[in-house]
C-alpha cells in the first residue's frame, strides 16, 4: 500500500516537472496579477504607502498558485478517467479510497511545490520578507493545498465529462479566488457576497497566510488562526469523505466501465 501511494504521488510530481511550460506559466500568472492588477490598484490606493497593495496581494497570490496547481492537478482525474492511467489504478489491488486519497495528496504536493517556488521569486523581487511565523506559513500552505486538492477531487468524482472544464473554470476557480479575501478584505463585502466568502474554505487559507506572513499585510486578518485551521480541516474531511463515498459507488464505475469498453479513437 505504501509503495502504491508513493508511486501515485511520484507520478504526479514527475508529470509536473516534465511539463515545464505549465510550471513556468503557473509562475507567470500571479506575477501578472502582482505587476498589472497590483500596480493599477496601487495608483488608486496612494494612502497605503508605496507598494502597500502589492504586499497585501502576496498571501492571495500564493494561494492562487496553490489553487491552480492543486485544484487542476486533482481535477486531472477527469482526464485520467478517459485515459489508461485510471484503468491501471482501478484494477490495482487497492481500495478505491486509497487511490483517491493518494491522487489528492499528490495534487496537494504539486500546489505546495509551486507556492514555494513563487515564494523564492517574490523574495528575490523584494515583495516578500522572511515570514513572521515560518511554521505557521508552512502549515498554511499545506492546509490551503489540501483544501484546493480536495475541492478538485470532489469535483472530479462528480463530473461526467471533459466538457465540464470550462464550467469549472467559470463557476469554481474564479469565484473561489475572487470571493476569498485574496484581493480585498472580506469585511467590506455586502451581505450575499460576504456570506459566500465566509462559506468559501479557500478564504480561511488566505487568512491564515496573512497571519503567517506578518506585518507586511496592511489589513488585519479577518479570522483567528484557530478558526482558519478548523474551517479548513472541516472542509477537507467532509469533501474527501463525500468524494471517497461517491468514488466507491456503482454509478462512477458504470460510467468508467463504459469508457473502458467503448474504444475512443483519438
Amino acid at each position, binding site marked *: 500500500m505504501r509503495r*502504491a501511494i508513493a508511486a501515485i504521488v511520484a507520478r504526479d510530481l514527475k508529470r509536473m516537472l516534465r511539463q515545464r511550460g505549465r510550471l513556468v506559466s503557473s509562475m507567470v500568472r500571479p506575477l501578472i496579477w502582482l505587476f498589472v492588477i497590483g500596480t493599477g490598484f496601487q495608483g488608486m490606493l496612494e494612502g497605503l504607502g508605496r507598494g502597500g497593495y502589492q504586499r497585501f496581494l502576496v498571501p492571495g497570490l500564493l494561494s492562487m498558485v496553490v489553487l491552480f496547481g492543486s485544484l487542476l492537478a486533482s481535477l486531472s482525474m477527469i482526464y485520467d478517467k478517459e485515459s489508461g492511467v485510471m484503468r491501471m489504478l482501478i484494477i490495482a489491488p487497492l481500495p478505491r479510497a486509497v487511490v483517491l486519497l493518494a491522487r489528492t495528496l499528490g495534487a496537494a504536493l504539486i500546489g505546495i511545490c509551486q507556492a514555494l517556488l513563487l515564494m523564492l521569486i517574490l523574495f528575490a523581487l523584494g515583495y516578500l520578507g522572511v515570514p513572521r511565523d515560518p511554521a505557521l506559513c508552512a502549515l498554511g500552505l499545506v492546509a490551503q493545498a489540501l483544501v484546493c486538492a480536495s475541492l478538485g477531487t470532489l469535483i472530479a468524482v462528480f463530473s461526467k465529462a471533459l466538457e465540464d472544464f470550462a464550467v469549472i473554470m467559470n463557476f469554481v476557480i474564479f469565484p473561489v479566488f475572487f470571493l476569498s479575501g485574496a484581493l480585498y478584505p472580506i469585511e467590506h463585502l455586502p451581505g450575499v457576497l460576504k456570506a459566500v466568502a465566509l462559506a468559501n474554505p479557500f478564504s480561511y487559507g488566505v487568512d491564515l497566510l496573512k497571519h503567517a506572513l506578518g506585518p507586511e499585510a496592511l489589513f488585519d486578518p479577518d479570522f483567528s488562526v484557530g478558526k482558519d485551521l478548523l474551517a479548513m480541516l472541516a472542509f477537507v474531511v467532509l469533501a474527501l469523505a463525500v468524494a471517497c463515498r461517491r468514488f466507491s459507488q456503482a454509478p462512477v*464505475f458504470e460510467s*468508467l466501465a463504459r469508457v473502458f469498453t467503448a474504444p475512443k479513437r483519438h
Partner: protein
Amino acid sequence: MSTPAAILTERLAKSYGAVVALAALDLAIEAGQFFALLGRNGSGKTTTLQLLSTLLRPSAGRAWVAGHDILGAPLAVRRHIGMVFQEPALDRNLTAMENLRFAGALGGHSARTVRERASALLQLFGLTDARDTPVAALSGGMRRALDIARGILHRPRILLLDEPTIGLDVQNRRAIWRHLGRLRSEEGTTLLLTTHHLEEAAGCDRVAFMSRGRLIGQGSPNELVGALGEYVLEVETESPAETASHLRPRFGEPLVEGERLLFRVAGGAVSLDHLTHELRAHARAIRLRRPDLNDVYLWIHRDPPLNYHPEGHPGIAAGAS
C-alpha cells in the same frame, strides 16, 4: 468459500435499469484452463469480465475468482487476477519500462522485483528495444503486448483478457496468441478471454457462446464441432428456397445465409458427383467440408438449446440429419 475452480459464477446478473446486460450466468472454469467467451458485440462478454474483475457490481447472483468472493473480497480478487482491457491500461506519457514499474508499485511489489520481472517480460514480448520509448510512440501491436505484460507482471493465477487481439493485424494477432500459449504452458495461468474471431478460439480448452446476455452453449471446440456432424455441405444457389425444399428430405433443415445453404451431413451420406449433376441448374458451387467453430456458432444461434445445463453436455441438438 474455497473451490478448486479458478472462476465460478452462480446466476450472475447485471442490468442497467431495464436493459439486461447479463442474465443469470452459471460458469465454472477450472484452474489452468484456456477458456474463451464468444459472441457478438453486446452479448454480455465484456460485462462478464468486468464483473469478475470487480470493476462492476452484479445486480444479482454471486461469483468467486481464485476462491474469493467478488463482492466480499474484491481486493483479494484483484490481487490474483491480471486484467487486459480492450483499451490499454497504460500511461501514454511514460515509457514502456516506467509503465511496468508504476504498475508493479501499484501492486505493492518492490522496485527490484519489478525491475527483474519487467526486463524479462519486455524480452519475452520483443519489447526490449522499446524499453525507454514513451507509450504514445509505440505501435498498436507493441502497445497491446506491453499491456499484456502489464497484466501479468504480478504473476496472476488468472488472466482476463477482453478482445486481446482487437484492432491488430494478422501478424500481431498471431504473436499475441503465441505469448498467451506460452503463458499457459509455462506458468499454468488460467486464461479467460473474449473474442469474436472464432478461428482464434479453436486452440482453447473450452469455449462458451453468449447471446443477449445469456450463455447458449459451451464445450471443448472439438466436442462442439464433432457434435455438429461429420461434414458440412455448403450449397451456393440463386434459388435458395427451391434448392432447400429439394434437399430437405435427404439432409434435414438447412441453415440459410443469404444465397448459401448449409447442411449437416454424415460422411457416407452424400455423393458430390451425384449432387453436382442433380443441382447443375441451381447451384453455383457445392462444397463438402469439415465443420468448424464458425458453423457451431451459426447453428447454436439458430437453435439455442432449450434446456441447457452448464455441467451437462454441449447443447447442440443431436441427429438433425
